[in-house]
């Protein structure tokens, strides 16, 4: 409990063993110059307030002296709603960017309590940026048009 409230102060969602997951699809794009997108998955409180980051995929491990954090501002909604106050890398939340495909991300226990909506934001170098928002309940689904494919909660 103590650990959990500490992590919440840091704006990170504590993820215990849980059944619920959010499935995020990164589409395969037919473009000349492709970089894997930066992706943020976060819980936005319906009543306002700072977001809780569930997952952040970025240039982790890049040998640029900043551990790949320089371009996190490109995820501009996530950055403003809490990303900028996180200390990265964060265990269980930070990850390097991922190739096109479908990924299941475990959600924290209180994510489906009704107090949140789930937001997935993607931004790609030399590409676009897209935000997909969906209600936090099992069975909810939405789809991006450009940088994100289907997003479903199971």
């Amino acid at each position, binding site marked *: 409990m103590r650990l959990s409230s500490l992590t919440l102060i840091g704006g990170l969602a504590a993820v215990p063993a849980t059944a619920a997951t959010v499935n995020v699809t990164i589409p395969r794009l037919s473009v000349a110059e492709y970089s894997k997108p930066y992706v943020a998955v976060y819980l936005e409180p319906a009543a306002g307030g700072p977001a809780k980051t569930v997952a952040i995929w970025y240039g982790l491990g890049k040998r640029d002296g*900043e551990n790949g954090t320089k371009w996190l501002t490109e995820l501009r909604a996530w950055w403003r709603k809490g990303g900028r106050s996180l200390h990265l890398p964060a265990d269980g939340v930070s990850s390097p960017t991922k190739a096109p495909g479908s990924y299941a991300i475990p959600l924290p226990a209180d994510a489906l309590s009704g107090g949140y909506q789930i937001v997935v934001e993607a931004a790609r170098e030399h590409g676009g940026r897209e935000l997909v928002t969906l209600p936090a309940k099992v069975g909810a689904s939405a789809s991006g048009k450009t940088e994100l494919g289907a997003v479903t909660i199971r």
Partner: protein
Amino acid sequence: MTRTVLAAAIAALSASAALADHAFLMPSASNLNGSQSIVQIDAAGADNVFQFDHRPIPLDQIRVWRPDGSEGAKPEGITSRFRSTFDLKLDAPGTWKVATVAAIVGGTAMVDGVERRVSSMRFGPRPGGPPPAAGPGEPPRQPPILLAELPATATDLKLVETLTRTETFVTVGSPTTQAFGGDTRGITLQPITHPTDLVANEPAKFRFLIDGKPAKVAVHLVASGQRFRDNEAATDLTTGADGVVTIRWPAAGYYWLNATAEDDKPTERRASVRRLSYAATLEVAAP
């Protein structure tokens, strides 16, 4: 407009505080991350907001405030025909402020029966070369008399003190507010909404102060890209007596915010009017 009429118009102390150009400091980014960030600042005065079409702001007039409120190193860069440019190494997290403050006294006075222009500033060579010769039949134009050299016998003094502040803000990581203090002369901005934390679909609130105290000012907001419009398409607002204005952004983009006011409290005793102007470059993000 003949020069005499122009001088008369300046001396008429008209309510319009419109200045000769739109001074601005344009950062290459408003929000950055990391301890090695560098932002590049362009400094210019322009006829059209954010276009480089008139004059550079000299680098020695530009000051930098670090996120802890202390003054940073003097900017080092280049000054070319239309702009000054310098790199700012952002080696501390938080909000940095880049600003210029110019206080000028100008107007006219009768000296030995002749109306002369008066200025507190000695003008250097014009950036575009010498001015064109006076028109046929016009007397040669006399240079302004330096205010410090204005004889005590001068009469009909019509002098205006103009205090112009131009600022922009750059944030590394999370926004902070320590850099907003310091020099309180003229109009300053106190954030209610932080000026590097603006989004098109959320109204922004700022408080304006005159000499450090909340005061009513007129606010003039111009979006970038005037070249692609038929007119300035400005938004004009007024603060309450508490100095607070609420801005609803028409769209995402860069905005030139100009707050103006006029009072009768010049620090130069021979001036009768003080005109105050504050300008900030603001970046409004798309939601």
